[in-house]
């Protein structure tokens, strides 16, 4: 224990002015980046917990004013928002379960050297990354498949993700073939090998792809906005998007009212504060999962990036 400070001193003495400059600058710059990243999210949080009218009257910067849960109450009272939240939860859960297993299985089969025709299969899959039918033929095809305005449109078309498949493949290639071969000779079935050997070895990539799939499903607004007409089937992102444009108009009206003194109430949620509460609710699930998964995905993405 006593030796460490000495060692520290020794290295400190060797630092040149240039070292100090570089260390200082990089530390400072990183702090700016940190602030620019974190502060907007922090601002969203304090606004969501502030009384809407008070926040409108006095700009908040660091602390919420008149802390309240009214904004969240207002969100919970909005039937459509609660409904969209449940749809988003259902969609994300189902998407992760189905898409990850389907994609992983495909990737696993494609990495087996014994699979006849795997070059052709890979090419069929890869081509779709470069060229597609585009928005309109896809829409018309979904229409003839009767997928428009159904919950299934969230799940079925995203069953296989070719980019995720490539990340899985990069990982599976590193599982020693001898491990699988010897299990085979011991009489294990293909399913058993998958469940007992491949899956336990693949926790990092499974966690990574689950996060990616989950985030994609949770954040997607496009599918709801263009493939779904029924408001009660729309996901939270899309409802939030509509809320934003509605809130813009309502907020302007309210600002006018508060400027002219026509608005007599001094507290209560505003469209802006309700919007911030909704945004926070939308970020929250990712925030909760993020710390546990982030140690995996950096590695997963790096492996994919290097090999792809």
């Amino acid at each position, binding site marked *: 224990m006593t030796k460490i400070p000495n060692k520290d001193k020794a290295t400190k003495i060797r630092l040149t002015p240039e070292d100090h400059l*570089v260390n200082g600058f990089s530390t400072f710059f*990183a702090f700016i980046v940190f602030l620019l990243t974190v502060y907007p999210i922090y601002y969203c949080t304090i606004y969501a917990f502030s009384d809407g009218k008070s926040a409108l009257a006095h700009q908040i910067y660091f602390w919420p004013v008149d802390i309240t849960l009214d904004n969240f109450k207002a969100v919970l009272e909005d039937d459509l928002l609660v409904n969209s939240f449940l749809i988003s939860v259902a969609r994300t859960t189902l998407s992760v379960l189905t898409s990850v297993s389907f994609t992983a299985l495909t990737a696993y089969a*494609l990495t087996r050297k014994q699979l006849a025709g795997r070059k052709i299969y890979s090419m069929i899959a890869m081509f779709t990354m470069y060229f597609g039918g585009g928005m309109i033929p896809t829409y018309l095809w979904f229409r003839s498949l009767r997928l428009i305005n159904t919950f299934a449109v969230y799940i079925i078309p995203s069953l296989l993700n070719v980019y995720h498949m490539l990340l899985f493949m990069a990982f599976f290639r590193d599982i020693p073939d001898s491990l699988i071969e010897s299990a085979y000779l011991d009489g294990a079935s293909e399913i058993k090998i998958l469940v007992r050997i491949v899956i336990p070895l693949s926790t990092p990539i499974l966690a990574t792809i689950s996060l990616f799939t989950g985030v994609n499903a949770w*954040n997607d607004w496009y599918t709801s906005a263009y493939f779904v007409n029924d408001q009660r089937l729309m996901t939270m992102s899309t409802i939030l998007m509509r809320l934003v444009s509605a809130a813009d108009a309502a907020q302007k009206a309210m600002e006018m009212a508060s400027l002219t003194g026509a608005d007599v109430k001094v507290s209560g949620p505003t469209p802006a504060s309700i919007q911030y509460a909704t945004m926070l609710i939308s970020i929250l699930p990712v925030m909760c999962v993020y710390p546990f998964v982030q140690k995996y995905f950096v590695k997963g993405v790096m492996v994919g990036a290097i090999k792809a």
Partner: protein
Amino acid sequence: MFKSLKSLASQDPVLAEQARIRFKKQLSYQLMIWPSIIFLIIFSYIPIAGLVIAFQDYSLSTSYFNNPWAGLKHFKAFLNDSTFWMSFRNTIELSLLRMFLVFPMPILLALIINEIPYIKYKKIVQTCSYFPHFIAYVVVAALWKDVLGNRGLVNNFLISTGLISEPIKFWTDPAKFKILATLVDMWKGVGWNAIIYFAAISGINSELYEAARIDGAGRLQQIRYITLPGIMNTVIIMFILSIGGLVSGNLNISVLLGNSFTKSQSYIIEYYTLDMGLGTMRYSFATAVGMFQSLISFLLVVFANHVSNKYNEVGLF
């Protein structure tokens, strides 16, 4: 198959057993891959076949294949439409901003964060910088629209300090749209896009730094002569690959950040396609636009991949 197995079995039971295992394995692998191939045919290849309606007069009552042929009518029509060219110009300009303004930022970030001497602090900054990538674009757009709104955080702050007396019109001024939207996009992606450069930096042999230090190279010289050349390959390949996205726009920016004030700057090809197709139901026309864009994109990507492969083989330095 069974006959040959049986005849094999009578000759050599060991060989037969091996053949049986091989067959069973092959069968199970094929059973794993076939659902995906069918999936790709249904959800990727049939829509590609659906591109034929760009050469037809599609009406909702029919299917993809039995419409009257229209030749290149729709292609001629959109090429003569000034709104299309507006969207085309906006798409290219936004892509150029992405390629030249946004592209260097993750590299810069990775280089600077790499120099931080405090490991824990470095880790925290890095982890936080990835986070915006995981926030929904809808939320990011709503957040910045409000923060930079006429009575938003930034304007209120500037007014309260007396720097300005009238709020700056951030989102209703067409002249500011492209740069602001690009900056918001950068905010969301810069940390995440830096991952590949962090990976490249961590792949540099640390003995090189050791040797440079002994030779008396300072920190800046180490960056200039070791780190930068060490990640140059990655940088060049990433840049070449970004050429592939030149005619692809970001619908998130356009739809979520754009508004009627800034339409002249925010309207991109994808938006035009959606408006023409799902908005005014000119399906064949919109498909022609989309196909035109996909074809150029495809050619650019093939070109970019070719160049990056060439570069990988030969190397420029």
